[in-house]
């Protein structure tokens, strides 16, 4: 059987330079948009939190500490998130495929690690921030209302820590783990 002949006999759609150039343009824009959107969202939220501090003019240092921790949570999230992008830039598109897949696997594992750390840190700082921020307003309340308010706050923090956080982590980790698994499958084909 002459496979080369069959292969060569096939028709191939012609090259389309216009389509290629428009794809290059949208490809760059798409990559930039995702990065900008996350950064803008978190920066705007941080500015909003800082503005609350400015307008409300808290008296106690705990309130300021709460605001600072919430902003720190956003900053930590962004710092780690922005560190994930250069990971992919370190991949050489023109290294041989065996090395390329090894590097891609290392990047995916690093991404999985960073994501888990980032979510833990984010939820921890944000929870501490809320608890500290509320202190100034809660101590002005009657004891029973103060206790009730903190009970609700801790309930909310607990819900975030034990339900939302693991769910967010699991969602991303499942996606990454399935990619890592398939990468390992392909890697076995190189041995």
């Amino acid at each position, binding site marked *: *059987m002459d496979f080369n002949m069959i292969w060569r*006999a096939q028709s191939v*759609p012609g090259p389309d330079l216009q389509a290629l150039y428009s*794809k290059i343009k949208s490809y760059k824009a798409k990559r930039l948009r995702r990065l900008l959107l996350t950064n803008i969202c978190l920066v705007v939220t941080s500015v909003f939190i800082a503005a609350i501090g400015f307008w409300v003019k808290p008296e106690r240092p705990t309130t300021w500490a709460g605001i600072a921790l919430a902003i720190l949570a956003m900053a930590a999230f962004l710092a780690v998130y922005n560190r994930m992008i250069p990971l992919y830039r370190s991949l050489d598109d*023109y290294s*041989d*495929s065996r*090395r390329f897949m090894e590097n891609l696997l290392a990047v995916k594992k690093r991404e999985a690690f960073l994501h888990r750390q980032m979510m833990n840190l984010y939820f921890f700082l944000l929870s501490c921030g809320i608890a500290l921020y509320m202190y100034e307003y809660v101590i002005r309340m009657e004891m029973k209302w103060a206790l009730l308010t903190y009970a609700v706050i801790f309930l909310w923090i607990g819900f975030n820590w034990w339900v939302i956080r693991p769910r967010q982590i699991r969602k991303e980790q499942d996606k990454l783990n399935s990619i890592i698994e*398939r990468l390992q499958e392909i890697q076995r084909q190189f041995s």
Partner: protein
Amino acid sequence: MAEIKDFEGLYSAWWEKIYRLCMGYVNEDAQARDLAQETFILVWENLEGFREEANMGTWIFRIASNHCLRQLEKNKKMQKAALTLQFPEESTPDRTAEVEMLYRFIAELPETDRIIISLELEEVKQGEIAQILGLSEGNVRVRIHRIKERLTQRFKEYGF
């Protein structure tokens, strides 16, 4: 400006080879076109690096192979779709039954074997295939032999 002209020349000269390689990997025309176009976006972005490379073929095929392998990040179902036993309804109109069969049987192979056989059918030297994939030449030779045996067997099963 000269760079753009270089790139356009490169694109015209290599488009068919890259498209066929991508088609060998995904066995689906629209997806193969996308993959081939994206390969050229990477070529465009890495044009500087290319100037230092000794062999254009190895360089461009490496980018294409790596990009094909990276599809596992995007499409979980891709491999399974490629294995469908019916002819695709929207196949390229003048693609012959033999070509369709060949692609279908290639789609049944593991990912790296799909790339190896596509490069072999593009008449890329075995030493170069080894360099593209990071395998030894001996390994490539053995694998090509096994793949061709398997393809022959599959064609026989279908009365060819």
